[in-house]
């Protein structure tokens, strides 16, 4: 404050400008002169966002990420990432006199000695569980609505990378406390690394700095967990958001909504208030969860010792499908030339990225099949692209079936089933069920399309029964409002790719590559006769509503 009089004299030459009305304006003036916020704000504060609950799934991801960083910083103040051995003599009696690593001892201290430590730990962990779940649901929203189409393919990849990094950072965080569960997880990872042919043992030695468990892995994971991955994630997150701003948000089709506009509310003040408020709601709900329910009770697991293990040793849910792959894989081994190829672990290790790659590559595969180079800002209703919706549902099914495999022991005990039966079910189900779900979902979408068509042509059922003079009963159908008719029929229906005729205009046989033929076949599957129901045309609608064709 004392410095302010000294800065006022240079400001006097600007007396030609109107005096700021109040302190707020003065502050804004000050900042504008140095940061240029006026033009920035002018360009962005009135930016329009469309309103729909499913567009807030990404916000949940963002806010939980912020919560994770805030609580994570607090935890680093007390956590000691060291595998040095100590004897515990703290306040938690059931661990009294037990030898443990400093990492574990400090986690116990965070839980029982540090003020608010246990709550912060639980907020950190619950937020992480919800963060990845929210990313998953957000990704599926983008998938089913076709929001990944041009120009957003790169942003889809950014989002996918964020999901994968979330998986790995979560796994590292789960490993840090060096409790019995996390140590078992690291051991699992070591086994997977060792299963890599030829170089497995070398990678293992490099990672652990010697034999398992050694003294290096926790400090290394700590650096990766708090520095490397969050740094990369932060960068990707910013890029993800910049692209959302740059592309503008997608919107649902409807009256007045086109590929060239965005209909919704401005960022300032509506979305500032909504998004700001939503942040506190998210924080509040996560904090309430953390106050109610225990997560990762490290004190109950006990310190890690390689000779101990507990049942129910699963990873956090997002890595559960990897656990499932390992659990249901038959223990195949090949021994040759004095080496063992551990297929029982190596095949799941290879399938793990494949499952993820399937969904990551989808936008590019669909783009190639359809060959659509236009921009899309209007979302697809999932029913209007039955093949895509079916494929998405099939992928989720695969994921869930593998999750069941990962939790097979708990399903066995809680549903009184045989563990072996569940494993056989998953082995077969991971091949059969996605295919079954694909066909069911596709048929379901086609049914919904038929229903839409029926509604457009015949109106909605009013429930009013009328008796005609000759005794026939009919139900009165009411015409849909114009806006609904528009929403139900405004979507495009692409036509399948047609192969060029077998002979060109000169009668010479044309060479059509295998790739083109495959593409045409896939395109036929997407948009051919079995792929979509032709939407009602204006003529059909007029004919029926004009009264001539009406029954």
């Amino acid at each position: 404050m004392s410095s302010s009089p000294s800065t006022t004299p240079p400001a006097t030459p600007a007396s030609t400008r109107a005096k700021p009305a109040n302190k707020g304006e003065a502050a804004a003036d000050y900042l504008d002169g140095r940061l240029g916020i006026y033009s920035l704000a002018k360009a962005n504060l009135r930016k329009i966002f469309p309103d729909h609950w499913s567009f807030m799934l990404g916000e949940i991801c963002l806010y939980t990420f912020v919560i994770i960083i805030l609580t994570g910083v607090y935890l680093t103040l007390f956590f000691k990432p060291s595998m040095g051995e100590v004897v515990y003599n703290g306040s938690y009696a059931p661990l009294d006199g037990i030898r443990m690593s400093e990492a574990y001892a400090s986690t116990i201290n965070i839980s029982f000695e540090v003020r608010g430590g246990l709550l912060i730990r639980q907020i950190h962990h619950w937020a992480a569980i919800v963060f990845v779940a929210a990313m998953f649901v957000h990704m599926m929203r983008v998938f089913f609505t076709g929001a990944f189409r041009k120009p957003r393919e790169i942003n889809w990849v950014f989002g996918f990378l964020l999901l994968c990094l979330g998986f790995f950072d979560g796994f590292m965080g789960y490993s840090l406390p060096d409790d019995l569960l996390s140590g078992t997880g690291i051991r699992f990872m070591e086994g997977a690394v060792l299963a890599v042919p030829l170089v497995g043992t070398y990678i293992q030695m490099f990672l652990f700095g010697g034999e398992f468990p050694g003294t290096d892995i926790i400090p290394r994971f700590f650096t990766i967990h708090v520095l490397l991955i969050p740094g990369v994630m932060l960068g990707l997150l910013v890029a993800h958001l910049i692209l959302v701003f740059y592309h503008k948000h997608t919107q649902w089709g409807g009256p007045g909504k086109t590929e060239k506009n965005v209909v919704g509310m401005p960022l300032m003040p509506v979305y500032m208030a909504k998004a700001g408020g939503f942040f506190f709601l998210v924080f509040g709900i996560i904090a309430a969860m953390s106050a109610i329910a225990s997560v990762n009770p490290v004190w109950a697991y006990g310190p890690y010792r390689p000779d101990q293990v507990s049942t129910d040793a699963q990873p956090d849910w997002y890595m559960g499908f990897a656990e499932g792959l390992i659990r249901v894989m038959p223990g195949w081994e090949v021994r040759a030339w004095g080496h063992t190829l551990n297929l029982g672990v190596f095949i799941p290790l290879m399938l793990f990225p494949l499952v993820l790659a399937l969904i990551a590559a989808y936008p590019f595969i669909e783009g190639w099949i359809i060959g659509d180079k236009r921009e899309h800002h209007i979302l697809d209703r999932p029913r209007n692209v039955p093949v895509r919706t079916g494929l998405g549902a099939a992928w989720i099914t695969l994921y869930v079936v593998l999750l069941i495999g990962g939790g097979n022991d708990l399903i066995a005990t809680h549903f009184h089933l045989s563990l072996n039966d569940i494993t056989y079910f998953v082995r077969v189900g991971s091949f059969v069920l996605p295919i079954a779900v694909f066909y069911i979902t596709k048929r379901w979408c086609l049914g919904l399309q038929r229903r839409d068509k029926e509604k457009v042509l015949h109106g909605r059922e009013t429930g009013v029964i009328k008796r005609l003079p000759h005794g026939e009963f009919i139900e009165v159908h009411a015409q849909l409002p114009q806006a609904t008719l528009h929403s139900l029929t405004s979507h495009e229906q692409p036509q399948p790719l047609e192969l060029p005729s077998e002979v060109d205009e000169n009668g010479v046989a044309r060479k059509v590559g295998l790739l083109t033929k495959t593409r045409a076949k896939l395109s036929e599957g997407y948009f051919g006769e079995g792929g979509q129901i032709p939407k009602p045309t204006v003529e059909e609608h007029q004919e029926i509503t004009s009264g001539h064709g009406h029954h």
Partner: protein
Amino acid sequence: MKKLSARRRHPLAALVVLLFALAITGGLYAAFAPAEKAQADSSAQSLAIDEGKRLFAVGCSSCHGLNGEGSADGPSLVGVGSAAVDFQVGTGRMPAQQPGAQIPAKRNIYSQSDIDQMAAFVASLGPGPVTPTSEQYTSTETDAISKGGDLFRTNCAQCHNFAGAGGALTQGKYAPSLEGVSAKHIYEAMQTGPQSMPVFPEGTMPEKQKQEIVAFVRYQANEAPNPGGLTLGSLGPVTEGLFGWIFGLGVLIAVAIWVAAHTTKAKKS
């Protein structure tokens, strides 16, 4: 003696000698032989065995045979000891309701004295682990819980879970939850190894270690308040993930729908 020697050639002399010899042998036998029947009739132990045998004939013999020799439906009970009976009947596992992958614990229908009698009968079939006394399974050491925790994680947690919540085994078998199991029964289970459980004999796990494990399990599964809030069954990350999806993300999505439904649009119209 003259008379005797005079009659030594008497035709009945051999018979008389034989009678004397028999009487002496029989008398000596009666005096020195282990008089089983005569003692048993008066002792409580033998009464218990008799009573136990009767209870056994009613409740157990259809599978284990009238003399505990076993059958196609149930194993021989020779040598299982009284501790096994006390555990199996005391926890309601025996008599079994129906055969299956595993005999579950259920409400016990026998009184402790009935169980003791059956245990006495089964113990009489052959030597085996003896029902422990409360000094045997109660630890007086102050650090028993922490030592027991370490032993539990080494020997028990791989099936019974870190908190004694139980876990799955193959083909529908399972390690049961240890919640609410009495100290005596935990001790007996370690002594006798019921169903899929291995036996922890004195040689591999001395009485003191068993006491410590009992102390830990009783603390963990019965007394310990969970500092973190609801335990969600102490089943590890699977239930945490389920809770996170349903009560975390589920509630957040519900809130998102609520927020999205309340817009300035509503006020204008």
